[in-house]
């Protein structure tokens, strides 16, 4: 049922960064081996993140659920991350099934496997992990009731592409849902087998689970298609309401998170200060699907943060939310945290700080500790296009902020732009260049000449990807040639000095877009791509567009039908059976309003 340390030692020989697979971090909470032996009725779950340890560990969703489940005396949660290429090869060669970190229990011995589908490019890794665990990837091929396989996370607001692999999905906030559904499993396991009926077992359980808020069970819905692959009808005509926790304050932040053994992408104490965003940027899926806006009480938060810093020993704290500057008591929070240092300097980061509400005082406060980089996301170059996407920032705001930042000693800024936005014109692309030049001019005006050598603007260009539950969900994505032209123009005309330019591959964005807006046919495409070897699609070195085009072709699916087509507003959308809390009519109104500008 589990892998012994001696066996682990043997398979870890020669493996890159073995610290990924050894467990025993500070802060682990799973039930001990002895506890499980004495309490065999414990519901065993494993939280699976379909990317490597370094990427998955900082994920706060996993940390939150891990805490909630393990606090419960009757449930246990362990963790598993995708093994890196070398370790996967070793596992397959030595015929060792994928195991959890905590007690090294093989995944197929759990009652529930919950994947965090944080974004679409993780889908093939989910299949790969199931396969490594010796579990059939398709629901219909899984003979046993357990382990049940489910998914949650941002991408699952459109569950259709993964629906053939998942017994159920949890859409929305997981805090309450996870406890309710584990209760259902526990109750079910207590029913004697002869009372369940032979084949009705799994259905009976899924029926019960489907009563939990936010749970979508694909087996209980039938999708009918038109000849062009668009959806004719989804039956029954009922909606699954996303799970929402009304008050974030009901759940303390995780003050004793698991501290990674090895360096991870964000190695710091991360605190969610607010959930949801009221800005309404028309391209932003997170902004629409995480409504309503819920803030944490600042006073409690300060206490919890101080406790967390003491518990972890971290010297960096990061306040996360979709738009940190909209947190009404940000200044109070930062002042109190920076004045309460436990030991040594503390650095504070605000990853999603909007520049329009950026001010002197805040800059001063953050500067007290070590200096971290500044990131701004104007998203579009021209005011016209920023109005269209409802990104509420003016050029004046941006340059004012730069002025403050440069005069306070910052010399590195990062600017995010999107290309291929709906209703974009050549002038909008040109405006990106103009804006970057103005930022450089501003730097030259403010930063003393002898310090300009350190000055750098990192410009990051992403292809726009229309996502479900946004006003732009119907909009076409630019085709690859158009995106390449636009990027070509930028890279040709952008000033060489001071600027570092990078962009995400348009091929990758196209696959992401198709998967995001996909229906159940895309499940076959994902499976096909995975069988062709697609995995770690979010890793530039591993993403292989040819595998994907091959998979689309083989399954008779047109990628352009999903990515670059404008979807008629009266077409049934694959995610129509999910009630995300924002009405479709409202989204359409917003789309039409954008069109008029």
């Amino acid at each position, binding site marked *: 049922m589990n892998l012994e340390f001696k066996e682990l030692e043997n398979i870890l020989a020669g493996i890159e960064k*073995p610290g990924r697979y*050894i467990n*025993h971090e500070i802060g682990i909470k799973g039930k001990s081996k002895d506890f499980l032996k004495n309490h065999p009725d414990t519901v065993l779950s494993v939280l699976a993140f379909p990317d490597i340890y370094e990427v998955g560990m900082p994920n706060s969703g996993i940390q939150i659920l891990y805490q909630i489940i393990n606090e419960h005396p009757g449930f246990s949660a362990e963790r598993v991350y995708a093994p890196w290429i070398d370790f996967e090869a070793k596992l397959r060669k030595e015929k060792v099934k994928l195991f959890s970190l905590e007690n090294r229990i093989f995944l197929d011995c759990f009652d529930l496997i919950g994947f965090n589908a944080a974004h679409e490019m993780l889908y093939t890794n989910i299949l790969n992990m199931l396969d490594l665990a010796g579990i059939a990837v398709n629901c219909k091929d899984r003979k046993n009731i357990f382990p049940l396989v489910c998914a949650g996370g941002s991408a699952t607001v459109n569950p259709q592409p993964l629906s053939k692999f998942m017994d159920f999905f949890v859409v929305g906030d997981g805090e309450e849902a996870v406890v309710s559904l584990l209760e259902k499993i526990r109750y079910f396991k207590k029913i004697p087998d002869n009372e369940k009926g032979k084949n009705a077992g799994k259905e009976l359980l899924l029926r019960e689970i489907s009563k939990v808020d936010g749970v979508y069970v694909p087996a209980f819905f039938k999708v009918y298609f038109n000849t062009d692959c668009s959806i004719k009808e989804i039956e029954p005509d009922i909606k699954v309401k996303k799970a929402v926790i009304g008050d974030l304050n009901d759940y303390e932040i995780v003050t004793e998170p698991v501290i990674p053994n*090895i360096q991870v992408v964000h190695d710091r104490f991360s605190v969610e200060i607010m959930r949801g965003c009221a800005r309404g940027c028309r391209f932003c899926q997170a902004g629409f699907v995480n409504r309503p806006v819920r803030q944490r009480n600042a006073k409690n938060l300060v206490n919890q943060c101080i406790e967390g810093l003491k518990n972890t*020993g971290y010297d960096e704290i990061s306040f996360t939310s979709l738009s940190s500057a909209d947190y009404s008591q940000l200044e109070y929070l930062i002042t109190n945290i920076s004045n309460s240092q436990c*030991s040594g*300097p503390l650095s504070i980061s605000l990853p999603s700080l909007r520049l329009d509400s950026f001010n002197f005082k805040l800059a001063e406060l953050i500067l007290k500790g070590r200096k971290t980089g500044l990131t701004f996301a104007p998203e579009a170059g021209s005011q016209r296009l920023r109005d269209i996407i409802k990104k509420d920032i003016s050029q004046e705001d941006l340059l004012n902020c730069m002025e403050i930042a440069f005069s306070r000693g910052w010399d590195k800024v990062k600017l995010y732009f999107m290309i291929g936005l709906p209703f974009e014109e050549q002038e909008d692309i040109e405006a990106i260049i103009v804006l970057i030049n103005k930022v450089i001019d501003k730097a030259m005006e403010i930063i003393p000449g002898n310090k300009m050598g350190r000055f750098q603007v990192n410009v990051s260009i992403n292809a726009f990807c229309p996502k479900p539950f946004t006003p732009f969900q119907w909009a076409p994505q630019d085709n690859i040639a158009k995106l390449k032209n636009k990027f070509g123009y930028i890279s040709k005309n952008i000033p060489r000095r001071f600027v570092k330019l990078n962009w995400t591959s348009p091929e990758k964005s196209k696959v992401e877009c198709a998967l995001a807006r996909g229906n159940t046919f895309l499940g076959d495409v994902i499976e096909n791509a995975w069988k062709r070897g697609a995995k770690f699609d979010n890793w530039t070195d591993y993403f292989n567009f040819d595998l994907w085009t091959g998979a689309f072709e083989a399954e008779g699916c047109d990628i352009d039908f999903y990515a670059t087509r404008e979807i008629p507003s009266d077409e049934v959308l694959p995610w129509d059976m999910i009630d995300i809390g924002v009405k479709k009519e409202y989204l359409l109104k917003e789309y039409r309003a954008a069109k008029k500008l």
Partner: protein
Amino acid sequence: MLKVTTENIIRFKFLKRAEYKFLSHLDILRLMTRALSRSGIIVKYDKGFNPRPKISFSNPIPLGVESLAEYCDLVLEDDTSANEFTASVNLQLPEQVKIISAKRVPYKVPSLMADIDLILYVFKINIAGSTFSENFMAENEKVVKLKEKIEGETNFSKSIFKIDVEYTDKNIIFLKILGYAKILKDVNNFIFKFNNFLSFFSEILKEFEFILDSVIKQETYILQNGFLKNPLEVV
């Protein structure tokens, strides 16, 4: 001569065992820094642009090797004693990484990395081989040959200060290799490169049909007037 200091410098020795042998030098550094921070021990920071805690470790240990002798020097902000220090930091450390002794250093010492001359690795080897042997002498001869073979390989012989073999009553021997951690004046030595040695060594073991059970970093030494002393013994 060594300069007396008013700073509270603590030198300590710690273990790195079991699962934690798979963590790198930098991982252990981070783990230690956080444990210190959790324990409320305040380490002095330097006055650089990005202030860094005044902590330095002994030589990095190869990944996958357990150690009974890792050393660390740090400067404390207050006058916490070595014993108090050990007690409070150990509370914050996992069982696989524990401080076993600590000492206050009353004067400025060279950094551990600059000072350590030799590292002792102990290879636990099963000499029973694939064919069960009743002839202890034959195995014994093989062991002698094994030792000769290592000593004969110039690359390694020049990086090894001393090799000892310890026999047990079972089919187990301990091969103790004392390797150079740095180039010494007037010795004309090489630095003992563990990973290179291990791949060379695995080949020989295969040839002799011996099985490497485990490797432990047993101790590190500083050569002082011809004597081997561990870093806690020199202060």
